[in-house]
């Protein structure tokens, strides 16, 4: 569980720092709960027959779940005082199929100040047993300073 009492400050960030990994087991039940939550009812995300007919090995996570994995990872890194300005571009490369153990993580690519904002660009990606499934892609955030 994340410790939301902690806040990372722009002053303390260094390029190359790790964005701590967050792990997700992709199960069919989880994808069904996801469909109810993010209203992506495309059956490739919860029906193996449909997924197979469309060329996928089995049902796979929808793009809302993928974005959510990235959001949770970035939120837990930047704390309550961080703000997200831009996400992407990022590409979903291979399917996050049911049974996958997906790890989403990243690094600090660069930091700078502009127009009074403390900016940090993160490079985030998701990977599982089959390789990098999503990204790497950019997430631009602002952080408070001391």
């Amino acid at each position, binding site marked *: 569980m994340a410790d939301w009492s902690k806040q990372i400050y722009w002053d303390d960030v260094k390029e190359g720092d790790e964005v701590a990994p967050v792990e997700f087991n992709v199960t069919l039940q989880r994808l069904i709960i*996801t469909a109810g939550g*993010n209203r992506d*009812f495309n059956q490739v995300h919860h029906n193996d027959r449909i997924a197979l007919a469309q060329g996928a090995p089995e049902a796979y996570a929808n793009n809302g779940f993928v974005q959510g994995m990235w959001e*949770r990872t970035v939120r837990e890194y930047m704390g309550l005082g961080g703000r*997200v300005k*831009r996400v*992407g571009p990022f590409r979903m490369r291979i399917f996050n199929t049911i049974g996958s153990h997906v790890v989403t993580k990243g690094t600090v690519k660069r930091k700078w100040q502009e127009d009074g904002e403390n900016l940090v660009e993160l490079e985030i990606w998701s990977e599982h047993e089959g390789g990098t499934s999503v990204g790497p892609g950019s997430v631009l955030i602002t952080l408070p300073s001391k």
Partner: protein
Amino acid sequence: MSQQEHHTWNDLIAAIGRDFSGGEVRQGADSVDQSSIRRYCEPLEMDCPLFYDENEARNQGYEGIILPWSAYGTMTSPAIWNPGENTKWPTQDKDYTATIRPPSERSESKAPPVPMPETNAGFATDIEIEYVAPVYVGDRLSSRGHKLLAVTLRETRVGYGAFQVYEGEIVNQRGEVVAKTRNGSYSYISGAKAPA
């Protein structure tokens, strides 16, 4: 023969730069509420207090509980079925898919159809979103604009079709832009090969 079968991939390429929204603003089915945020966060096990703790959100400079940024698109989704409409499940086919009709297929819509061959599969591929403003409980989101930016024809492991990128905006009930989006997708014919 459907209307789509009259078109070729070259028609789609020729349409790059065209806006297929018909100028319509497409409103999401529901206003943002605490229940929709909770249900969105549940499978992600995302416990950021900004999504459920009003005091904490205000302490951080927000006007109240905020919607996760990754859920903006969700809250622009129209309903599959609306009161007064015919059933969306008219068959016992266990794999039948009820879908939200695209704007161009609604009789009242001014949105033009996208000129492309008929496909039988598709999925999202690329995402780029610029977040302009927070979204709060009580807001009602809509999507605006559907401009075709790019088309790339390609055979992949799953079939043959077109990668497409569309640009749009997400606005709140006051018409204020809360996000700018570029969404990529791949529409394809499952198992098909590229023309020789």
